[in-house]
């Protein structure tokens, strides 16, 4: 069996700077989530890495294919322009990524960004939590999205 912990390759730093970040977008229906008390049924995740093999589009269990050095960006689209949703937190193993909370310039609209620190041999699930409407406690879906290594790598990690 191939060794689980591989030495991460060195990558030139500037490759990450001009490359497009991998955006993970959460489309949320906050009215339906609050009315039915079910966020999972009203949460749809997508990312911009379909060509690299990301799966689970349109569900809360998005698996995004990423590599070490990729910049990740999480943002939210609410289904109605008169309702409020924001991403309260992105919790993931800090050895893989350490997401930081930012706002789009001159606004109070939140997005989170992180750099992938290691190549992934197995999918790493992470936790998103959302603020919906005027409810002060964040909501978390039951199902978890994950970051995964490139599709053609790691025959042992399924």
């Amino acid at each position, binding site marked *: 069996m191939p060794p689980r912990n591989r030495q991460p390759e060195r990558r030139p730093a500037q490759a990450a700077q*001009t*490359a*497009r970040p991998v*955006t993970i*977008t959460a*489309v949320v229906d906050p009215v339906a989530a609050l009315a039915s008390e079910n966020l999972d049924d009203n949460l749809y995740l997508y990312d911009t890495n379909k060509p690299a093999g990301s799966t689970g589009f*349109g569900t809360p269990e998005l698996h995004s294919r990423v590599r070490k050095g990729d910049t990740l960006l999480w943002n939210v*689209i609410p289904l109605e322009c008169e309702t409020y949703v924001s991403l309260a937190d992105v919790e993931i193993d800090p050895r893989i990524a350490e997401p930081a909370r930012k706002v*789009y310039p001159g606004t109070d609209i939140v997005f989170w960004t992180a750099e992938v620190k290691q190549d992934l041999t197995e999918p790493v699930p992470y936790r998103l939590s959302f603020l919906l409407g005027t409810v002060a406690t964040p909501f978390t879906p039951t199902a978890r999205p994950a970051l995964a290594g490139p599709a053609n790598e790691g025959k042992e990690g399924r």
Partner: protein
Amino acid sequence: MAQQHGIIVLFDVENALRTRSLDGNTYWFDNMKLFGSTGVGSEQLVTIVPGTHYLDGSQATEQVLNWLPAALGSIPPTVPRNYLAEQGRADDRRTLDELAGLDAAGGVEEDDVKRLQRRVGKRARKPASGRGLTEAKLLDVTGRTTTSSDAYNYPAPVITDITGPAVTEKIMYPAQYGSPDMIYDGWYWAATVDTSRPGVYRYTMHIQLHELVERNDELVWESVDLTCESNLKIINDPKRNGFTGAGVGVLPLPPVPVTG
């Protein structure tokens, strides 16, 4: 008036420009899943339109559809565009002020010039025929001005027309309406629906995407026109009291107030 329908169409613009097709790159949403819309989040959305009518057959509620196109991987449509344009102008004013303050006699610092150049950013020429690009300045996906033409923010996709059986059979009456938020030069598409003929009706949406190309040493936005389809499902029930499930009338209040 019944709750307005919001139909969001999310396009994977990068992929759509690469394949020159919206097939497999379009995700449809509406806010009526609780009322029976199916395929929310996929390419096969069927939007439920629950019409109600009075006993004399006239329409009791007006159903309004509103469309909002968005680009996956771009700044979300919730960030007000005119706001960003105003910020861009304020940035330029600050840059001019700083330029005016530089003392050329003492020798200008290269760092200062570089910083100002970064803030000025890069502009791309808008095509005469393109629509909906309110800023010519390039932004990156976090909303900052950028000089890089690799990781630029895709402008919002623009709906240029809505056609198909749902329109020709006069099931819905679409038009563009103005908005204070200059996302699409201030226009968005909305339609009212005639709910007297139940059934499933298809419609085609004509979309314009914009791609940044280099031509004769300058950056230009070029428009790319594509189409995608969706459906409306009209149902028609008699208007009913939401509390009792019975006909419209007074609520069944007890004759004597409950004590205790």
